[in-house]
């Protein structure tokens, strides 16, 4: 996913903060003298990822709590993959998506993470480890995290089918995506993915121009229209790719689409300006449109959601102090503050108990339990997202994650799919 837009990086580190951080690392508490500080130079972690989780607030809090300096390298998802494969020495920790693992793990540039060093490894939500939520199985079409969660050994290039000590990615955020709509311009209920290609919205629909994600949305539409039932939407056969693209090309030629979008801001602009009234969208983009004073709904649909998940991985070359610091940072990330911070933006965090402990009861009820907001719901920066009484689209965590139909994926026929997608754009 290429959410490289809402970038809040650019942390400037004041000298005072640096000294404080150094002192914290040394476990001194107060600054006692210059030589001590020099010996306890704070560790800097180069954090490669999309801008989704790269917030100034997180970096500041880490520095306060652990004395570790986080240096963000914000790039797009595609560039994350490219960089892991071509320049594995250019970062100390990477935040990437589970579907990318199908390329990253065989390349041998990542280190399996030792579950014994992750304090809350057992508390990671079963969405990842077993593909369950609230005791119920959830859809596992595509690259579901449980399929790529464990490695056979620390430096193995193969995924393990059973839980092992070696974890590929420690989850940071995840969510279940659906269509965004403009209820004020559509003026009737929308219940199915097939509405995306409904001629009623001719010239007013859009999907994303990221082939591996766009084709999943297209597959949801094809299946919802009753044209074809896929064995696995996230791993189509060549014939299925042809069929899916044929449906899309016909719609395109009939003028169904106003435009395609590739990044967060494009999707926000299309929707806010009324160029489109129905389109694939990401949850924070919907929030953004709403915060501009434009009605926009992240519409739950009866066929379910297309989910995605991201997490931390370490490069194989990481050693010594930096490796320890990375584990410290990951442990800190799971310990609650960051989880609550991300939950408040509409994402879901990996360890729910600790996040809950860091949120107000009314916040938890709104974001995670699907209950009406008791008070105004505020974003981490203090702006009001929803007035009291509002309810979150898609309801509770269990309702939403339980409704997952498929996961973002890299198909076996990836190459063929990309070629077909290019044909779709050229049609």
């Amino acid at each position, binding site marked *: 996913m290429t959410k490289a837009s809402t970038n809040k990086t650019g942390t400037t580190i004041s000298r005072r903060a640096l000294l404080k951080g150094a002192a914290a690392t040394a476990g001194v508490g107060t600054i006692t003298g210059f030589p001590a500080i020099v010996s306890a130079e704070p560790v800097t972690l180069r954090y490669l990822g999309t801008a989704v989780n790269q917030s100034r607030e997180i970096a500041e809090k880490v520095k306060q709590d652990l004395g570790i300096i986080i240096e963000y390298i914000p790039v797009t998802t595609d560039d994350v993959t490219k960089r892991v494969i071509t320049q594995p020495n250019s970062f100390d920790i990477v935040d990437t998506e589970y579907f990318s693992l199908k390329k990253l793990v065989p390349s041998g540039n990542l280190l399996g993470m030792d579950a014994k060093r992750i304090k809350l490894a057992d508390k990671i939500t079963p969405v990842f480890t077993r593909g369950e939520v609230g005791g119920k199985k959830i859809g596992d079409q595509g690259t579901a995290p449980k399929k790529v969660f464990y490695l056979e050994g620390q430096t193995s290039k193969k995924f393990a089918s059973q839980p092992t000590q070696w974890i590929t990615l420690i989850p940071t955020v995840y969510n279940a995506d659906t269509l965004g709509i403009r209820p004020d311009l559509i003026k009737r209920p929308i219940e199915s993915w097939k509405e995306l290609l409904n001629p009623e919205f001719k010239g007013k629909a859009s999907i994303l121009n990221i082939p591996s994600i766009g084709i999943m949305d297209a597959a949801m539409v094809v299946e919802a229209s009753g044209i074809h039932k896929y064995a696995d939407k996230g791993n189509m056969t060549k014939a299925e790719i042809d069929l899916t693209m044929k449906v899309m090309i016909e719609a395109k030629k009939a003028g169904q689409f*106003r435009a395609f979008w590739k990044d967060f801001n494009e999707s926000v602009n299309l929707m806010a300006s009324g160029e489109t009234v129905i389109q694939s969208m990401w949850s924070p983009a919907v929030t953004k449109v709403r915060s501009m004073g434009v009605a926009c709904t992240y519409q739950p649909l009866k066929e379910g959601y297309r989910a995605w998940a991201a997490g931390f991985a370490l490069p194989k070359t990481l050693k010594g102090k930096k490796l320890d610091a990375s584990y410290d940072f990951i442990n800190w990330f799971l310990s609650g503050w960051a989880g609550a911070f991300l939950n408040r933006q509409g994402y879901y965090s990996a360890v729910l108990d600790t996040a809950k402990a860091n949120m107000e009861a009314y916040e938890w009820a709104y974001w995670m339990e699907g209950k009406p907001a008791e008070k105004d719901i505020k974003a981490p920066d203090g702006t009001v997202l929803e007035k009291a009484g509002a309810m979150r689209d898609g309801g509770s965590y269990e309702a939403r994650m339980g409704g997952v139909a498929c996961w973002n994926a890299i198909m076996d026929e990836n*190459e063929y799919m990309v070629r077909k997608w290019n044909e779709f754009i050229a049609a």
Partner: protein
Amino acid sequence: MASMTRPYPNRAALWQAAPLALLLAVFFVLPLVLVVVVSVWDYNDYAILPDVTPRNYRDVFEGCVASLPELCLTFKTYLSTLKFCLLVWLSTLLIGFTVAYFLAFHVRSLGWQVVLFLVCTIPFWTSNVIRMISWIPLLGRNGVINQWLQSVGVTDAPLEWLLFSDFSVLLAFVHLYTMFMIVPIFNSMTRIDRSLLEAAYDAGASGWQTLWNVVVPLCKPGIVIGSIFVVTIVMGDFVTIGVMGGQQIASIGKIISVQMSYLQFPLAAANAVILLAVVMMIIWAMTRVVDIRKEL
């Protein structure tokens, strides 16, 4: 003269040329060679495999002959790119020539020429992308132009073709690149000896005849240089076509960028080599029409 030139160039001249030659070798020739080399290598999902294979070129042209008269992806994309190329070239040439002509022949004082020329460069103080994006609120469905057209009663529904269409792509290209035509043509025009124009007038030529038989031929080098700029930029562009075409219009640059994002570097390299060949052929054809070196 011939007797004075030495059989080998003198040392100082070689040294003087060395920095540029080195720069070009490292930053232009070497990468180009690498692209060509990679274009014949094999690859898988996550690595480039250095053994020679025709696979990438075969993939680029897959089904192109078999599916005729239906166009395959590559042919279709080139056709679409060439169409834009031709339209943008024609528009920028006409506008660029007119502006240059005005600056060179109608503005009498050198001071004003300089001032007006600088005015032409003002748009370049902002970035390409910003200049492009600023069209969107103007052309959109609920944009300024549509609202104005509806308020004065010219149309009763918004014009959809203003944005995310061939039209908006063309508009953005012309807006962005006309300057590349103005500069070399203006440069050629200022070198034209004014007495030639007087001679044409004295000989009884009309304004159009002077323009066509005197000014245009003498501007040819400028026109060709400007054309090379415009053609090479438009052939490789994918940002403008992406943003203004709503990501719905194919361009060969876009295909290359998608392939790179999926780590299909050798395939992208093969496409790049073909694109390079096509652009070189266009430039070669243009320099056939006008021998720039002679004219300069």
